[in-house]
């Protein structure tokens, strides 16, 4: 999965779980700037797990500050598709 595909997937998750407008999502945006408190952020993490099929440990998730942190984690953790 490419970087753009991962970001697009996260954008959809943010829209579905936290009603974040797709045009507001960018890698450098912090989760707080998108209006997510720690509990909503955890919902986003769980939905991202379902979407990408991998588990994100809670202590990793607690370190995510920006959208890019979450995308970066998924890219490192995912088994390359090709």
């Amino acid at each position, binding site marked *: 999965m490419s970087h753009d595909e991962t970001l697009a997937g996260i954008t959809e998750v943010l829209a579905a*779980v936290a009603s974040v407008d797709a045009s507001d999502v960018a890698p450098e945006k912090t989760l707080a700037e998108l209006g997510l408190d720690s*509990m909503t952020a955890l*919902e986003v993490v769980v*939905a991202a797990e*379902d979407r990408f099929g991998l588990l994100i440990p*809670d202590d990793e998730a607690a370190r995510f500050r920006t959208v890019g942190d979450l995308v970066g984690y998924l890219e490192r953790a995912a088994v390359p598709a090709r």
Partner: protein
Amino acid sequence: MAATDLRVAIIGAGIGGLSLALALRERGLTADVYEQAPELTEIGAAIALSANSTREYARLGLLDELTAASTIPTELIYRHWRDGSRIAAHPVHNDNTYVSRFGAPYLGIHRADLQKALSGAFGVKYVHLGCRLVNIIEDNNAVVVEFANGRVEHADIVVGADGVRSTVRRWVTGADDAVYSGTSAFRGIVPTDNLPSLPDPHAIQFWMGPDAHLLHYAIGGNGELVNFFAVVETPRMWLQDSTVADVHEDVPIASFRGWHRAVTEMIRAAESPIRWGLFTVRPLLRWYRDRVVILGDAAHGMLPHHGQGANTSIEDAFALAAFLTESRSDDLDTAFVRYQTMRRARTRKIQRSSWVTSSLLHLPDGPAASVRNEKVARVPQDFGWIHDYDVQRALAALTPPVAARPSD
């Protein structure tokens, strides 16, 4: 095959399993419950039911029977471990605060009383005792379950409601995902009359101190008994196969040396030299495999510090019943995926919050405890979301929505 023809086998007649049986019946599905114990008895344990589960039981018409066996706490009080001073207090029954806010009551009840009410409502003839699961075998479009007593049953769906050390979960994930928390508990049930030093015996109270806390609340129709749960940060490792271990009779009291007399008096009165290891289940990516699905502690065993282990099992049960009602025997995946997506998020939040709470309750006196004390003063604001949750409303809010209540 229509959903109402599904044969559902529930493994475990605890609170989650029996609640699922009732929730399925409410929606027109039948189920059988298989329990390894030869009798439905729970030793020395009580639970606190909060509005997120009592509103479901209220709809089933069970509330009068449950209330008759319960005590509603007057207040939620946090106290200092040694001098007993009130650090924070929040009304529960007082001024009808809790019911006015959440629309359903908070009940302290003995597990045996709750189990009796649930199994009685469901019908004891559908609860099969002495059936310890030993094998699950897939067989074309069904599942075969084998029990240690030689019994063999066929089902379309098997639900593992068999607790934190779940056998069914091992079949689903292929691993033992239970994790010892590094904390253990002494618990007991004591006649209230034997606790002369205890202030506010009908409140739910946390006594918080260094590396330990004690929680208690009253149970029984007239608050005649006090159930307590005393948590310590030992042993570092849990080496027993069982989740309980006998200890020398002096161990529980020695763990609370120097604490307020109400605490030591309670532990001494219980005469219960048993240590309960507190286990959690690591977050799981999947709660099902083929025709087998898990709920409750089996899926998301958590530390009990929000009192939500049983309550979230009950939420799971009513959610799973709704999804199964809309499922087909040849497509269970859709129902299971929707169930786990909804429930994984909710339970992960509470599971995580319970971890954080555990260390907060165990601080020594000092600056960190002062910050903590400000936090416990905000508990009703900060944790209202746990009690406010309405499974039926959450189902109706999904895309696509699931019928919130059984149609009549």
